[in-house]
């Protein structure tokens, strides 16, 4: 007689699985954010760390509060943490922490949970949070404090009590995109690449973002087509306009604003972008065109967030028109 187990287990094929899992993918992206957070802390000081911590914590708390609350619930997959951290990194430094918290709560509750949670949201949750903040507090959200004011420097605005704005104005600096748009001044490329310019926490250092993006792409954490299509479209489209004097140079377009950050971390969000390969190209094309249009002809200096959200909205349609053609069909 066999010492066989009394009950064999029946599971469906395949009986082997690739060594990947959704939580693992999420935590890889979280890990990839660490250098970005480090760069933010280098330029904007301890404020950056406070903001990222607030965003991640509130996002996680919101996810937990609305999920089944059995143990960690859906927190375990790490996506809420990621959303919160990403949101914080797209915010201007010195934004009151209560706004960061509000944004994170909105990102998870409105951007994600209302629609059914992980995998079902239609819009990038972090950007829903950011768009909410941008629409709610337009002035505060376009006030940029200058980099390099010392590591331990904390603006009074950052710690303003909830619902109130800071009594004292922050030492503000115009962002490179704001400078082009409203004062027709371009910024040198070098500071843009290293990141020593005004802007949102995570977006300023182009070099860090490029390295992180390449690593994530090579590790197949995301679909490389999405960022490549986006960036290529911006380069080509703005390049053409640049020849006619209608746009800053493609190099400037690439390295300024939230484009690289968006391309690496947000255009690549699997949930809100097309599943098909062709759809990914369309998506990147759409984001690229919209970014160039909004930056050069729109009322806003920066359009990455809105471009991504708009293409998120179009994603179900893109999926539909880009169904793969079956083999031999």
């Amino acid at each position: 007689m066999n010492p066989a187990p009394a009950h064999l287990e029946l599971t469906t094929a395949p009986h082997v699985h690739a060594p990947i899992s959704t939580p693992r993918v999420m935590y890889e992206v979280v890990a990839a954010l660490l250098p970005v957070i480090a760069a933010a802390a280098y330029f904007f000081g301890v404020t950056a760390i406070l903001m990222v911590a607030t965003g991640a914590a509130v996002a996680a708390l919101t996810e937990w509060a609305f999920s089944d609350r059995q143990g960690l619930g859906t927190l375990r997959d790490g996506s809420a943490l990621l959303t919160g951290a990403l949101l914080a990194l797209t915010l201007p430094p010195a934004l009151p922490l209560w706004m960061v918290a509000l944004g994170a709560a909105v990102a998870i509750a409105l951007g994600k949970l209302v629609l059914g949670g992980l995998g079902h949201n239609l819009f990038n949750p972090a950007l829903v949070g950011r768009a909410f903040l941008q629409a709610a507090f337009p002035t505060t959200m376009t006030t940029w404090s200058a980099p390099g004011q010392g590591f331990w420097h904390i603006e009074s605005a950052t710690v303003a009590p909830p619902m109130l704005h800071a009594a004292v104005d922050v030492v503000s600096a115009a962002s490179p995109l704001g400078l082009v748009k409203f004062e027709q001044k371009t910024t040198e490329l070098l500071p843009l690449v290293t990141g020593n310019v005004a802007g949102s926490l995570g977006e300023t250092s182009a070099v860090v973002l490029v390295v992180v993006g390449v690593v994530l792409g090579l590790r197949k954490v995301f679909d490389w087509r999405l960022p490549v299509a986006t960036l290529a479209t911006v380069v080509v489209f703005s390049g053409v306009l640049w020849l006619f004097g209608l746009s800053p140079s493609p190099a400037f377009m690439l390295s300024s604003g939230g484009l690289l950050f968006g391309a690496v971390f947000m255009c690549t969000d699997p949930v809100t972008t097309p599943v098909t390969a062709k759809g990914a190209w369309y998506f990147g094309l759409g984001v690229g065109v919209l970014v160039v249009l909004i930056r050069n002809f729109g009322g806003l200096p920066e359009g990455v967030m809105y471009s991504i959200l708009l293409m998120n909205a179009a994603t179900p349609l893109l999926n539909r028109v880009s169904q793969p053609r079956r083999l031999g069909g």
Partner: protein
Amino acid sequence: MGDFAGAVAILAGLCLFFGVVLALANSKLKVWQDPRVDDVAGKLPGANCGACGQPGCRAFAEQVVAGKLAPGKCTVSSAGIIADIAGLLGVEAGGDEKRVARLACAGGKSAVRDIADYRGLGSCGAAAVVAAGGRACPWGCLGLGDCARSCNFGAIVMKSEGLPVVDVGKCVACNDCVVACPLGLFSLRPMSDQILVQCSTPLAGPMAREMCQVACDACGRCALDAPAGAIEMVGGLAVVRAAGFSDVKSTLRCPTGAIQWVEAGQFALPKRVALRALSLGRLHARAG
């Protein structure tokens, strides 16, 4: 004052113009549709269940008004509504005898051996493609309730034995559960078919009984006890051939209780009959 008249004229003129256009359209572009279709459709339950064989209630209404179907073909409507529609159209109510969904298996958790653990999607369709689930009998009910989920009328409840129980009062014979069961265990039967073989295994003899306590082991007693031709043994199973057959005698010697006389709902036997069946059948079988 001219202003005044002008203004009134403008409006009246506009209205006159559209009056003429619409009147013309009304007479030239009119599409006649039997208004009774709307009336009948309004009375139907709107469940769009398809039990009548039509793609939906409105299509059924069109067929009824056209005289192609009897109102009674709608199995969902109450008799009152059917009579109402029949009265409206001046036709016979028609319709067939009430049919209900019947399950050809009684192998609940305690009757059939569990020989493996199925892990995965909790639907019968999914379990059926993984070694037909963990129960020993590959023909029997998987117990995961696809039928209950498919029933739009709430007529099927999964009972603790892991078997679906049909509430014959609610069942409208829509055929959904018949399609939903991956093993094809459901069929629609007239209510007057009261002798049911509640098993589907072709296995016979001890192999069948070892696998499941209530299996039809093809002993053939029921066929012998029934009038000639009413019950036949086919491929290791008893099959009731006679329509409206309800002779309880034929079930009494069944050693496993696989063949049953049911009054209304399956698995809900009148106590008296159940006891008789037990004493005569099961004990008999155990002794032998």
